[in-house]
């Protein structure tokens, strides 16, 4: 098994290098390169086939409990459920690298399979970039290899950490990985366009669907990770500004900017340099993130620990950034765009500001993330920035961004004067003011909450108002009903209304994040049966514990999992709302405790109970009341839906 796996990897590496050379040779314009291209395409297909085989081989080993592989021993056991045997494919560093290489080869394969004339023109110069990424990951696999033979003959494996046995953990890692790799495609197309010295926007047209899909996967992956941290880890939060979390956020921010900015190039033939810069940094940020989690230059809870992969990543980053930026600077004059718009009040300005604000947010997040590294070099003392830093620098940017998004959507890419838009701005502003007043009435009177609340409400109100106006325009003069008109709009312009949904989603998320960051309340205490704890307007009464055992093996004895349930009756403002049952389970084979938080979510707030300790008559709990958390998940779902709607047509 091990030999076969390694053999496949070696062949994949050799074919990748050879295919790269073939593509370089095919650039020669003087010769007929049809045959060369055929061979090169055959190479791409071969790499994809071989890596698919490797992936299948590992999958078979995992499912069949083949403990001759160290990786199988580490991440599964005879008792592991089938689904988690499959997800063990990406549970460890070595497996994740193989998946990365495989997805990359799949995308390369799709690039030659998709019959689009535009793509065909760009592929010969784009493919070496994809191959370079592929080669990097295959080389890295040799230093963390899933096909390494086991240290000794095992009869049972160590098993997956039970903390990861959760639906979000099945999806979160592959979504992020796919998102990361997808961003390689628009980057490769951009480099191709730069090498060809193209002045048209062909690469933008071809790159947008890939970028949108990458953005979508990254966004969904991040949101699922937040949700998992919230429901599983028990600290009541969902984002810790950890370096590895930040490296999932930064490429997403830049990809968001690219999606907006590239729209301007499509529509108005402007922002050409911006688009190159944004995609270059978005992609390289994904590689930088992969580097961070595999080196020890920063401390992260997600870190793979110190590995020998740092230098390989650095070399790749230097080549990738160096070559792409050099090409861009060399061709700079080709991409100078002169915009006819110089007035401040224009769609041009609003899009420019979107680019600037999102880039600044990425920069500020990067500074905070890298601060310990640089401070140690410069002062000898490692200094970390806390959550407060990241929040303070990012919140103002996003508040301004929300206002810009609200105004910007009214322009419709047209020239409009402030006068024409008076009503379109005034109505949503009034709605947002009304919403902010309501907020102040329920006691959220901190000035920065009112200001940011206003901005996010304005963004939502403005988007909805614009939507209503569009429907009115579409329905006027026809005898269609409002709903028919709405349906028609969706049919005819999915990218636009997908983006409206995404705007509403992100603003709702922002409101949820704001509420749950500023106004959580927490309390912890030890309760005897019948005793109560009051947090905010909730009263929690302890009603005893129960012990249960799972999976009792045939012939009796103890099961692997022992569960301790604690019962709490909860009233809100004196009214009974239900029973919450946090529990803790002990997995005997891994000697690992797993806490299940008891959560009751409502649109207003979540009550969140973590069972910390217990004895015969008492239990110790930490209780948090987190307002608005549900809105984060609702907004997240709307955001992803919006992306899907937009993508369904963008292809």
């Amino acid at each position, binding site marked *: 098994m091990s030999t076969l796996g390694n053999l496949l990897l070696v062949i994949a590496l050799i074919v990748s290098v050879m295919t790269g050379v073939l593509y370089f040779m095919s650039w020669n314009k003087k010769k007929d390169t049809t045959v060369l291209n055929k061979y090169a395409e055959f190479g791409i297909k071969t790499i994809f086939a071989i890596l698919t085989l490797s992936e299948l081989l590992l999958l078979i080993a995992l499912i069949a409990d083949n403990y001759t592989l160290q990786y199988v021993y580490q991440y599964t056991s005879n008792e592991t459920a089938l689904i988690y045997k499959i997800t063990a494919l990406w549970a460890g560093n070595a497996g994740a690298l193989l998946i990365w290489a495989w997805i990359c080869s799949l995308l390369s394969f799709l690039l030659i399979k998709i019959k689009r004339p535009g793509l065909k023109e760009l592929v010969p110069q784009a493919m070496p970039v994809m191959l370079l990424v592929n080669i990097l990951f295959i080389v890295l696999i040799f230093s963390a290899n899933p096909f390494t033979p086991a240290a000794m003959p095992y009869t049972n494996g160590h098993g997956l*950490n039970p903390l990861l046995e959760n639906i979000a953990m099945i999806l979160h890692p592959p979504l992020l990985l796919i998102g990361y790799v997808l961003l390689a495609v628009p980057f490769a197309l951009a480099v191709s366009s730069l090498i060809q010295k193209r002045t048209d926007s062909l690469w933008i047209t071809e790159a947008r669907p890939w970028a949108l899909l990458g953005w979508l996967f990254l966004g969904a992956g991040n949101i699922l990770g937040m949700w998992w941290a919230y429901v599983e880890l028990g600290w009541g939060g969902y984002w810790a500004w950890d370096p590895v979390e930040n490296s999932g956020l930064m490429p997403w921010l830049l990809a968001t900017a690219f999606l907006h900015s590239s729209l301007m190039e499509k529509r108005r033939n402007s922002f050409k340099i911006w688009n190159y810069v944004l995609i270059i940094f978005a992609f390289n940020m994904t590689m930088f993130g992969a580097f961070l989690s595999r080196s020890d230059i920063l401390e992260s809870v*997600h*870190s793979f620990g110190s590995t020998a992969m740092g230098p390989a990543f650095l070399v790749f980053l230097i080549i990738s950034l160096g070559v792409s930026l050099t090409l861009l600077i060399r061709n700079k004059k080709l991409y100078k765009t002169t915009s006819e718009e110089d*007035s401040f009040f224009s769609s041009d300005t609003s899009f420019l500001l979107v680019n600037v604000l999102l880039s*600044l947010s990425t920069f500020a997040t990067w*500074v905070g993330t890298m601060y310990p590294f640089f401070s140690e070099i410069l002062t000898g003392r490692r200094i970390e*920035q806390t959550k407060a830093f990241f929040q303070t620098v990012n919140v103002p940017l996003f508040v301004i961004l929300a206002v810009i998004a609200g105004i910007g959507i009214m322009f419709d890419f047209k020239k409009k004067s402030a006068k024409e838009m008076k009503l379109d701005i005034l109505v949503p502003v009034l709605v947002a003011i009304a919403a902010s007043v309501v907020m102040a009435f329920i006691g959220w009177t901190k000035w920065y909450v009112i200001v940011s609340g206003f901005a996010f409400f304005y963004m939502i109100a403005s988007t909805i108002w614009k939507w209503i106006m569009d429907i009115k325009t579409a329905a006027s003069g026809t005898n269609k009903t409002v709903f028919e008109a709405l349906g028609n709009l969706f049919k005819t312009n999915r990218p636009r209304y997908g983006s409206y949904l995404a705007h509403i989603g992100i603003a709702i998320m922002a409101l949820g994040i704001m509420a749950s960051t500023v106004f959580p309340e927490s309390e*912890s205490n030890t309760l005897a049966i019948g005793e109560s704890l009051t947090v905010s307007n909730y009263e929690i009464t302890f009603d005893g514990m129960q012990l249960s055992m799972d999976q009792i093996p045939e012939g009796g004895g103890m099961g692997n999992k022992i569960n301790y349930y604690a019962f709490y009756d909860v009233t809100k403002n004196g009214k009974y709302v239900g029973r919450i049952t946090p529990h803790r389970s002990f997995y005997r084979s891994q000697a690992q405790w797993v806490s299940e938080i008891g959560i009751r979510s409502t649109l207003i707030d979540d009550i969140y109970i973590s069972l910390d300790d217990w004895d015969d008559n008492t239990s*110790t709990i930490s209780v948090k009341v987190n307002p608005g958390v549900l809105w984060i998940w609702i907004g997240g779902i709307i955001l992803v839906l919006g992306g899907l709607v937009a993508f369904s047509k963008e292809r």
Partner: protein
Amino acid sequence: MKSKTIVISSVAVAFAIAVLGYAYFMGDNAYYYEVGDFLSQTVEQQMHNTKVNGTLLSEERDKNSVAFVLTDMNDESLVLNAYYEGSIPDTFKIGNEVVAAGKYDPNTATFIANELIVKCSSKYEPAV
């Protein structure tokens, strides 16, 4: 250069500089040490907000508080006594790498942590 570009880029540059300045001067930041390095600091510096990284050597729990000992990852003879109150992460287990965030209390000669961070279980590669 158009006036718009000039205005926007200068505001952006000003913001970027402000971010750096904020990080440097105002930041509610924390020092980061391995156990050994932390022990060699002056008491005054130890009382600053700090994150200490070490291996969990022993722990004694009482309800939702825990008194524990961290050792330096390279030198087991260097130890730090610490105390934490709150929900204890499931992965807080002897032998695991732990980051304790908090401040040193010279009166009790104990590091009072307000946050415990254990290396993410997903990447926890078991000792073989």
